[in-house]
């Protein structure tokens, strides 16, 4: 089974589409980080302008933890779409190419191949999430430094101490991995039912938007 997973991972990482996903995430994050680096203080000032009269905010509001929070809010839709694009192509893409039949003439059964493809797609999802975490959290921490996490909500303020933030982010990324694996599973399931991978990805995007609106 491991050799089949290796083969599927090899095929995933030989496709230009895969790197487009990694590149798209990097481009979005870098653009936002660059913008905040240039004009971040004005943004931070805008965030706390309503409470400046009643509270004295000390320290670095615009730190790596807040940048990561902003990035994750902004990429809430993009990441599931990029995951869905690969997951939705795992079976339908090969069925369209005709290579699925070539795989089925090997000694391995359909079940073996489907399981290997699902595991490979899940591994891709986790790798994409690690890439996201690296850029959004660790690179932001490196560029903007760290301090307490100060979040403005509509009618209250959340303040989390610096020493208490990192483990929460780790927890958030673990939770995100389950969420994205659900998207992968959904894309994979629909990939076995339809031959149109772009259509599936759009459907998953629509589902993400609906859930976002409901939430």
């Amino acid at each position, binding site marked *: 089974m491991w*050799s*089949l997973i*290796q*083969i599927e991972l*090899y*095929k995933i990482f*030989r*496709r*230009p589409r895969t790197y487009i996903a990694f590149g798209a995430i990097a481009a979005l994050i870098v653009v936002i980080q660059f913008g905040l680096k240039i004009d971040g203080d004005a943004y931070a000032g805008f965030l706390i302008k309503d409470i400046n009269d009643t509270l004295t905010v000390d320290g670095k509001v615009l730190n790596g933890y807040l940048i990561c929070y902003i990035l994750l809010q902004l990429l809430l839709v993009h990441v599931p779409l990029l995951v869905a694009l690969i997951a939705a192509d795992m079976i339908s893409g090969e069925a369209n*190419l*005709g*290579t699925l*039949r*070539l*795989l*089925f*003439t*090997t*000694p*391995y*059964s359909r079940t073996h191949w489907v399981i290997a493809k699902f595991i490979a797609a899940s591994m891709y999802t986790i790798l994409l999430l690690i890439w996201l975490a690296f850029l959004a959290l660790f690179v932001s921490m490196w560029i903007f430094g760290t301090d307490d996490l100060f979040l403005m909500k509509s009618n209250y303020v959340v303040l989390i101490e610096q020493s208490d933030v990192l483990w929460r982010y780790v927890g958030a990324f673990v939770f995100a991995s389950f969420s994205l694996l659900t998207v992968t599973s959904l894309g994979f399931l629909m990939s076995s039912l339809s031959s149109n991978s772009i259509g599936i990805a759009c459907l998953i995007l629509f589902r993400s938007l609906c859930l976002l609106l409901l939430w």
Partner: protein
Amino acid sequence: MFGVFCYNLSMAVIKVENISKNFGTLKAVDNLSFEVEAGQVFGFLGQNGSGKSTTIRMLLSLIHPSSGSIELFGKSIQKNRASILEQVGAIIERPDLYPYLTATEHLQLFAKVRKQKVAAINITKTLEQVGLSHRSQDKVQTFSLGMKQRLGIAIALVHNPSLIILDEPTNGLDPQGIADIRSLIQYLAKEEGKTVFVSSHLLSEIEQVAHQILIIHQGKKMVEGVTKELLDPEKRIVQIKTLDDVKALSIIVAGSFSQYLLSRKEGIFLKLPTSAIPMLNESLVQSGIAVLGIETKNSLEDYFLQITSNA
């Protein structure tokens, strides 16, 4: 996971018994039986839609027969699929490949699927066999249909299988490519002792390489036999071309040559001993028929047309 098994060389590599395949009300294959012995090149002929590819899919366990049984290497394909397919290399209908991988990467990938560590030199050798060594590092998206076909054959060969199943292997190939694949099939059977099951619409190609042929029509077996015997050199199929075919035909029907007359929609065709050809010509000339030509057509193509038109 996969057990190694041996089989007696004298037994049939492929044994198909009374298989049928129904798709709804359509009977794609109807009670088909045949055997292929080790080391043979077996030609599988039929018109488009005759059930060739369906049969090949059943041989590879891609679909299951509605009834009947298939044994490869003396074992049921349905019960021993994994161990049997280790020994089989196949291409089906058209070469389906990954456009973003190179020729070498394809062979490495499919060698890995078979859990075989194929040395780089063997990959080079396989690509040389199919005439693709000069494009080994090029991505498949830059390949012509003929080159994809060659790579498909290379994939079928890379793990050194005992049985090679080729469905229309000369599709998209130029005349030189067709000749190369013909030589390769002959080499594989003669020099490497492999069994080759090949279907093609290019009947002249099958005629030149196959030891045994089977012709199917509308899913049913029409004829099966040794190619040399079916194309009996002692009896020739000839086409008579005259200025007045109607009169010529009436003379043939009325005379002793009527027994050799073949049923064809267009033209006058006879299957007769070589020695009788001059007598036929003489008989027609003496009857006042202007004979434009007597064309010998003792090819598999003529035999195939004869069989299928009679059906």
